[in-house]
């Protein structure tokens, strides 16, 4: 970017191509930074146990599937996977359904108790969950929520709600209130205006909240391990024992847990872009 100021000795085209080159190099570097560790995980997941423990390590996987297939034979993996999907989906619905209206209210209105609410939301995220698990588990056992998909989703939604509230709040704050008002003057009701004007604009924020809710639920171990027995999630099922499992299985299991989350992010990635602003070229 600094090259743009040195226009004295070089032509405009040269500057452009130089800065373009810099830009591309930067993007490539960032991609390598993000992808390289994932690549290492995949090498280890797809190599034979001997290769995983050997030195020096191979830089290419040998596509030995012994470790990965171990998991598919593992009793109950598919069920746990299905449980995880259900819990994560419910978490998403709860977090957005409860969080988005709250985010909208915070961005559009001034009212007493606004700050108190914001602090409640932030506190929720700032307190270590493993300590809350005990009173929650007692409550769940007493009420019959124990060992249910919904019960765990409620806890995960508590973790995801701050993300949903704060992200939708910041997004709604970025949408000019005049747009909404314009819609009202054109005869829309408040609700219509919200659906037709605001919601499409806020879609990226809602998509981002959905991603967070899904990922938080997907990767949460502690509450899942305490609150589910018959209905174990995949993470509770695999991850907490990975730590003490032999190295090759650690990586294969780690890779297996990562995959569904990556598929989910892939599916929603395009909603993260606004339909307006950068999109209306």
């Amino acid at each position: 970017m600094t090259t743009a100021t040195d226009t004295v000795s070089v032509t405009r085209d040269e500057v452009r191509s130089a800065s373009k080159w810099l830009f591309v190099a930067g993007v490539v570097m960032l991609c390598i930074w993000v992808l390289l560790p994932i690549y290492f995980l995949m090498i280890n997941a797809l190599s034979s146990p001997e290769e995983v423990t050997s030195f020096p390590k191979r830089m290419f996987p040998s596509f030995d599937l012994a470790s990965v297939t171990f998991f598919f034979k593992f009793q109950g993996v598919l069920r746990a996977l299905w449980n995880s999907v259900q819990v994560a989906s419910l978490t998403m619905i709860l977090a957005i359904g409860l969080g988005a209206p709250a985010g909208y209210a915070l961005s559009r209105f001034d009212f007493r108790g606004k700050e108190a609410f914001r602090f409640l939301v932030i506190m929720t995220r700032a307190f270590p969950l493993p300590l809350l698990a005990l009173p929650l588990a007692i409550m769940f056992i007493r009420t019959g929520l124990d060992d249910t998909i919904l019960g765990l989703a409620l806890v995960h939604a508590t973790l995801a709600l701050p993300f949903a509230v704060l992200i939708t709040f910041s997004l709604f704050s970025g949408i000019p209130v005049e747009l909404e008002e314009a819609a009202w003057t054109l005869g829309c009701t408040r609700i219509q205006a919200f659906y037709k004007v605001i919601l499409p604009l806020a879609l990226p924020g809602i998509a981002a909240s959905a991603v967070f809710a899904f990922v938080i639920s997907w990767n949460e171990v502690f509450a899942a391990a305490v609150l589910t027995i018959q209905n174990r999630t995949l993470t509770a099922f695999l991850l907490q024992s990975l730590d003490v499992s032999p190295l090759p299985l650690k990586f294969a299991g780690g890779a297996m847990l990562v995959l569904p989350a990556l598929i989910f992010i892939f599916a929603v990635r395009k909603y993260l872009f606004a339909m307006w602003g950068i999109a209306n070229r």
Partner: protein
Amino acid sequence: MPRLLPYLLLLPATAFLCVFFLYPFVLVAMESVTREGSYSLDNFQRMVSHWKFGTAMRNTLLLAAVVVPVQLALSLAMASVVTKLSTGRSTLLYIFAIPLGISDLAAGLIWLAIFEQTGFLNSALYGLGVIEQPVLFLSYQNPMVIFAAIALAEIWRATAIMMVILVAGMGLIPKEYGEAAEVFGATAWQRFRKVTLPMLKPSLQTALILRVILAFEVFAVVIALGGTNFPVLMEETFQWQFTLQDRGVAAAYAMVILGISVAFTILILRLLHVPKGARV
């Protein structure tokens, strides 16, 4: 009606948080100020007088102080790059967002595989002929290396959280603003500072608050790379709750984590104040 509307909108979330957060929270908070059935600050006393408390506090703050600013810069760069592209945009966003899908436990696993003595870094250096014998990076005698490894792993793992929030926020900045600035001869850097950053304030605030709070709860990556060499607050909380079976002191630690999180949240809110009607 309009006066009640905000309350109606907040009601479901508030009721939900009261049952599933506030109620258990109050119970744990009570536990932190109770010792053998009576109110006392004994738990806090015990916590503070334990020889690891100061180190854990210092490490946690230090790690956040190093990691969060780097992540802020990196996530801004990533978000700018993504929004700037016209082709391959969603692919690039996806690549940048990948670490989001990786739990902290798995991230610790991956980075340990890089830094351990028989790990990928040593393999690469050995393969390139830089070293003749694998180097021991994560030795208790090199606390700085351990710190750097933890910081790198955290930066890698948790930058995507901020990036995604910022991408969503940048999408709402009307392109015309940037174009207008360009017409007046503003450089890319000037456009970024004078147009993008101010307009991005609400998202920046959110991204920073969430990231800072999570930084104070850092745990799994630290355990994986630092072992017992690098105590942090969350690690001590676990230790007291489960290994030492002293829930009172664990609750006291949790209150401390909450306290510093709230303090930093207030600080961020002050520093990045979003004025009313700042909606363009």
